C-alpha cells in the first residue's frame, strides 16, 4: 500500500502530469470546434453589431475595470500564464474572443460571468478592444526556461505557423489571428494543449491540423520561443538593442 502511494506520488511529479492537470477542467464546446455546423470566423450576430461601432480607448479603460481583477490593472495578465497578457492584442481578436466566450463557442468557465451581457455591453467590448490594442506593456511576461528556444523557433518555422501568426508572432488584425509574441509561457502552452485536444472551442480547424503532430515537448519548446520574442509593436532597432 505504501509502495503504491509512493509510486503515485512520483507519477504526480512527472512533467506530463502538468498537461493533464490543465486538461482536467477543459471540456469540448457544444457549439464550437468539433460540433456540427461550426465554421471558424462565421460572424455571430453580436460580432456584426460590434464591428459597426466605434471603440473609444478612454471609455475602454473604464470598462476594463471589470476585467482587471484577473488580467491586472496593467492588462498584462498573470506571469504564470493563468490569465493572458492582453496589452497590444489586436482589437479584432479581443472582440472575437470576448463575444465567443459569452456566446459559449469558446468555453471558459473562469471568464464566463465577467464576459456576460450583464457585465459588459456590446459597446464596451468595442471600447475595451481599442483600449487594449493601444495599451503599453510595462511588465515582463512569463517566459520559458530558454533551453528550447532554438528548437521552438525551428518548429515554429517548419510548421509554417508564421503563415498566420507572422514571423514575429504579430498575428493579423484583419483576419483576427492573435498576436502571440511575448505572451506568457504558461498561457501559450495551455492554449496550444487545448487546441491540440480540440477543447479550445473557437479553434481554427487549420490550426488544430497544424498542431496535431507536435509532441508536448514540441509545444513547450514553441511556447518557450514565443514567450521570448519581443512585443511585435517594437521597432526593429528596439528589438536589436535588447
Amino acid at each position, binding site marked *: 500500500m505504501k509502495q503504491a502511494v509512493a509510486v503515485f506520488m512520483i507519477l504526480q511529479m512527472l512533467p506530463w502530469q502538468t498537461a493533464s492537470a490543465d486538461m482536467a477542467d477543459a471540456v469540448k464546446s457544444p457549439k464550437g470546434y468539433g460540433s456540427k455546423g461550426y465554421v471558424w470566423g462565421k460572424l455571430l450576430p453580436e460580432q456584426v453589431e460590434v464591428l459597426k461601432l466605434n471603440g473609444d480607448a478612454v471609455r475602454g479603460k*473604464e470598462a476594463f*475595470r*471589470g*476585467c*482587471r*481583477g*484577473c488580467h*491586472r*490593472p496593467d492588462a498584462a495578465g*498573470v506571469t*504564470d500564464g*493563468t*490569465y493572458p497578457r492582453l496589452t497590444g492584442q489586436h482589437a479584432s481578436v479581443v472582440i472575437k474572443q470576448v463575444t465567443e466566450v459569452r456566446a459559449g463557442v469558446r468555453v471558459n468557465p*473562469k471568464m*464566463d*460571468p*465577467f464576459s*456576460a451581457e*450583464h*457585465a459588459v455591453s456590446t459597446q464596451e467590448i468595442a471600447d475595451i478592444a481599442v483600449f487594449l490594442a493601444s495599451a503599453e506593456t510595462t511588465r515582463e511576461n512569463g517566459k520559458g526556461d530558454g533551453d528550447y528556444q532554438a528548437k521552438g523557433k525551428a518548429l515554429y518555422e517548419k510548421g509554417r505557423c508564421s503563415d498566420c501568426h507572422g514571423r514575429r508572432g504579430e498575428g493579423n488584425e484583419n483576419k483576427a489571428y492573435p498576436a502571440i509574441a511575448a505572451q506568457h509561457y504558461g498561457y501559450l502552452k495551455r492554449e496550444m494543449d487545448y487546441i491540440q485536444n480540440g477543447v479550445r472551442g473557437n479553434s481554427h480547424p487549420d490550426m488544430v491540423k497544424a498542431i496535431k503532430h507536435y509532441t508536448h515537448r514540441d509545444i513547450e519548446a514553441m511556447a518557450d520561443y514565443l514567450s521570448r520574442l519581443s512585443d511585435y509593436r517594437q521597432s526593429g532597432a528596439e528589438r536589436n538593442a535588447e
Partner: protein
Amino acid sequence: MRLTLHGIRGSWLAGVALLVPGMLLSPVITLAQTVPIAERLLLCGGCHNSDGNSAIPENPNLSGLDAEYIHRQLQDFRNGARKSPVMSGIIPLVDEKEFEALAAFFSKQKPKPGGAVDAKLAAQGKEIYDEGIVGSAVPACSGCHNDDGSGTEKYPRIASQHAAYVVQQLTNFKSGERANDVRAVMRAVAKRMNEKEIRAVAEYVVTLKGAQE
C-alpha cells in the same frame, strides 16, 4: 418589537401586522407617509446611526456610499429583489418618494475609519484583495472596488465597512440568498471563495480608507 423602537407609528403598524398578517403589505404601503428627513432619521438612525456610521457591526455603514447605490438598494428592499429580515420590516414604513433624499443624505455623510481586530487575518485579506486567488479564479477585489475600496460608478464603495456585515453579504452572495448584484458578478466571485477567505477579506476591507478628500 423592533418596530416599537421607532415611534408610535411603528408600533401601531406592528400591531396591524400582528392582527392581520395576510393584509400586512397593502395597508402598510398606503399608510407610509412622506416625512421630513430629520424625522425619518429617527427610524434609519436606530440601526445605521444618524450620520450613517452604524455602531453595530452587523448593520452596514451607509456614509459615503454612492447615492445611486443606496437608492437602488432601497428600491430592491421595497420590491423584494434584496431580502433582509430587518429591512423588510422597515422599508414599508418609508414612502418611495423619500428614497432619493435619504440616499443623497447618507451619501454625503463622512465615513468613519474602521480598524481590524485581527491584523494577521487582515494581512491575508490584503493579499486576496490586491491579487485575487489565482488558483481558484477569484479576481482581485481591487479590480472593481479600487485599491483603496472607494468603488467606482459601477461598483460600490466598501472601504471601512464593518467586517461582520461584509462577511454576511459575501456569504449571502455565495449562497445566492443575495441576488441583486446587477451584474451577477459578486455571486460568481463569492462562490469561488471559502469561509476563511471571506473572513480574511472582510477583516482587510474594514481597514481601507477610501478616497481621501
